[in-house]
């Protein structure tokens, strides 16, 4: 038990379980199944973008990708446009989304590397361009996803939402990459001390580039799934995911100082973030109160988790 508590990811799961218990207690447990289903569905999108953000944040202080919302919007918009509601085009749409991810990630890193812009500025500025391209290509049309794809995105297998299964699969891939692969070691080394990593023979620029491309590819996949899930792309569909992607990383126990990442924690935190909002909703809190309380709860969790780690 002691060993489990001391793991940084346990906090986000503990918080998620607690919030879940409080919320379902209000409905005498009758809505518990539906609540869990909704949390898994909506949490999946936050988890997918959170995994990407985590990889970038692991690179160390100053590394963050603020273009996630714009990339999600652009990928959702272009993928749906390419598919044009035609049946059997789901893979084409996915291909478009991945290409959008590769392109935006390469552009972001080009700005960071060639122009030596701080990542915050580079990704924020680039996101204006991506958002504009999305607006220009969308032109107010709302294209529906192909029926098969929409069914998949809202469907379930063995009672678990399909999007959650995709999110889980992606989390496993990221976990293997970080914990078992040479690339993961290189990433963690670069995040601890970039200069020392370079002098130890780590190809640090390749590592940084791949991190910035991975985050946009994951954001694109999330955008593609979200657009299919909600029946079409909207220009503000990525909006919530800017703060969300960073919050799930921090609550999940990944170190902002770099060099330490935490895959299970991201999933726990994604569930927690959804559950907090639905808990406050079910207690009838208004929008303003809800946001204040959400903020305070996040701060509390981060403090609790970090003091625990400091004592260790």
């Amino acid at each position, binding site marked *: 038990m002691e060993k489990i508590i001391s793991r940084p990811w346990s906090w986000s799961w503990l918080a998620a379980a607690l919030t879940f218990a409080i919320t379902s207690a209000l409905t005498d447990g009758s809505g518990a199944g539906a609540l869990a289903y909704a949390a898994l569905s909506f949490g999946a999108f936050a988890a997918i973008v959170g995994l990407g953000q985590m990889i970038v944040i692991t690179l160390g202080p100053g590394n963050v990708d603020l273009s996630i919302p714009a990339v999600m919007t652009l990928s959702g918009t272009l993928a749906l446009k390419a598919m044009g509601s035609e049946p059997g085009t789901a893979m084409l749409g996915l291909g478009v989304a991945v290409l959008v991810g590769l392109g935006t990630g390469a552009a972001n890193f080009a700005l960071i590397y060639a122009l030596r812009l701080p990542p915050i500025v580079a990704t924020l500025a680039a996101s204006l361009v991506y958002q504009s391209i999305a607006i220009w290509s969308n032109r107010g049309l709302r294209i529906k996803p192909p029926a098969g794809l929409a069914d998949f995105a809202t469907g379930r297998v063995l009672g678990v939402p399909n999007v959650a299964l995709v999110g889980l699969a992606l989390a496993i891939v990221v976990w*293997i990459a970080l914990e*078992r*692969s*040479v*690339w993961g*070691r*290189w990433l*963690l*080394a670069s995040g*601890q*001390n970039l*200069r*020392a*990593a*370079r*002098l*130890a*023979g*780590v*190809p*640090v*620029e*390749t590592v940084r580039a791949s991190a910035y491309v991975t985050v946009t590819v994951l954001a694109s996949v999330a955008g593609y799934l979200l657009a299919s899930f909600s029946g079409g792309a909207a220009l503000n569909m990525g909006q919530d995911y800017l703060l969300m992607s960073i919050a799930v990383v921090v609550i999940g126990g990944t170190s902002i100082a770099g*060099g*330490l990442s935490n895959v299970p924690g991201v999933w726990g935190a994604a569930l927690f973030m959804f559950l907090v909002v639905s808990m406050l909703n079910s207690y009838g809190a208004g929008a303003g109160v809800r946001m204040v309380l959400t903020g305070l709860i996040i701060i509390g969790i981060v403090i609790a988790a970090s003091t625990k780690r400091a004592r260790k």
Partner: protein
Amino acid sequence: MQQSAFEQDAPIVALTDVAKHFGAVRALDGVDLEIRPGECLGLVGHNGAGKSTLVNVVNGGVAPTAGAVAFPASGAAAALSAGVRSVFQELSLCPNLTVAENLRISHAALKGPGWRRAARAEIGQSLDAVFPGHGIEADATVDILSIAERQMVEIAIGFADRGAEARLVILDEPTSSLDAGIAEQLMAHIRRFCEGGGAVIFISHMLGEIFAVASRILVMKDGKVVADRAAPDFTRQGLVDAMGHVAGDATHERGDQTRSLGEEVVHTPQGLSARRGEVVGLSGLAGHGQARALAQLYLGTTSSWRATGRPQMVFVAGDRTRDGILPLWSILRNASISILSETAKWGLVDREVETRNAEKWKRRIGIRTDDMNNPVLSLSGGNQQKVLFARALASSAPVVVMDDPMRGVDVGTKQDVYAMIRAEAASGRTFLWYSTETEEVCQCDRVFVFRNGRISAELTGAELTEERILEASFEMQEA
């Protein structure tokens, strides 16, 4: 210096049966120690013998597990108010602040308008007193200073007024990054300071320095004091024996002179070159471009974009915290980072090879830990340096670049590493080795002496003597 401020006979600090345990590790195991005004205590022992822990107990940095620490001379309860100052081997200045601002951190009385002027004057005075002709600006930010200059600033802060008199200054390996001339100035200042009634604890792995400055020598081994006598009662050999390591006096035994070397494998526009199987030394006064030449060579040869299966060159850092250690990781992961691309299967880390590598190097280079999965920061400074050696030597790279890698490494380990370097060179590896210790450089096959960022001399064979190196370091004009 006010002689009257010291009560002549009361010790400045008195330790009674002090012990400090870190988990199962007994870093200190029952130490009694008194230091009186006017004494210069030389503290020697291997890496991990407990020297750093002992000084941390004296300066209040760690609380002892058992035993008592008292400051009878001043009657103070805490080390700081008793006038105990520490200068650490790990450089602890804030790199983004100026020299004067760094003084302010340990001198809380400097405040109000104009504190910067007072700080500038104080640090300037102290630098002038310890290192006449130092050439360090009080307004320079620390990150533009060389590692030797930083160490000088740190020493000067240790001896500075800071509102209350320094009674006991602890110097932990102060000379390891200083060249001979600067170290000599420090020695002279320590003697003056002790004559004036101050006391010094001086830790060094260079026995010559200990004999030059210490009035009393304390030898530590495995957390215990094994010898504590006046300095003249020790001989060099006796001291080494007391430390419990057999170090041959064969420092000048160079490898087989007639050994044929291979083709040239390194050549820089600056004129630095090395052949296969050669040990090439870089020497000269500290901060004259040796470290930069090596960094340029390494960064120019290897790529930030591509990692080949077999690296062309590996680097052993001397500035551990800046260039070497990955602080969040275990010893094992630190030791294996440079061999990952060679041993990986399908891009995945082969953890069996990794564990075998760690065990092999733990044995070969004697890393003092019971488990290689312990965090690397649980090791003492010298042992961390061994991990960096292991990291480089474990790879199959044909060229090894070493940037003053022996800082904080004890005499016994140095001998082991020298032997290892000779053996590796004999099997065809090339070493480029920058060292601030002339004695070390004299073991190389060939030496380039640097002055003002340029190579001022290339010495081989019989020309390779300490005198010639010093000559080339100081020469004012090209002949």
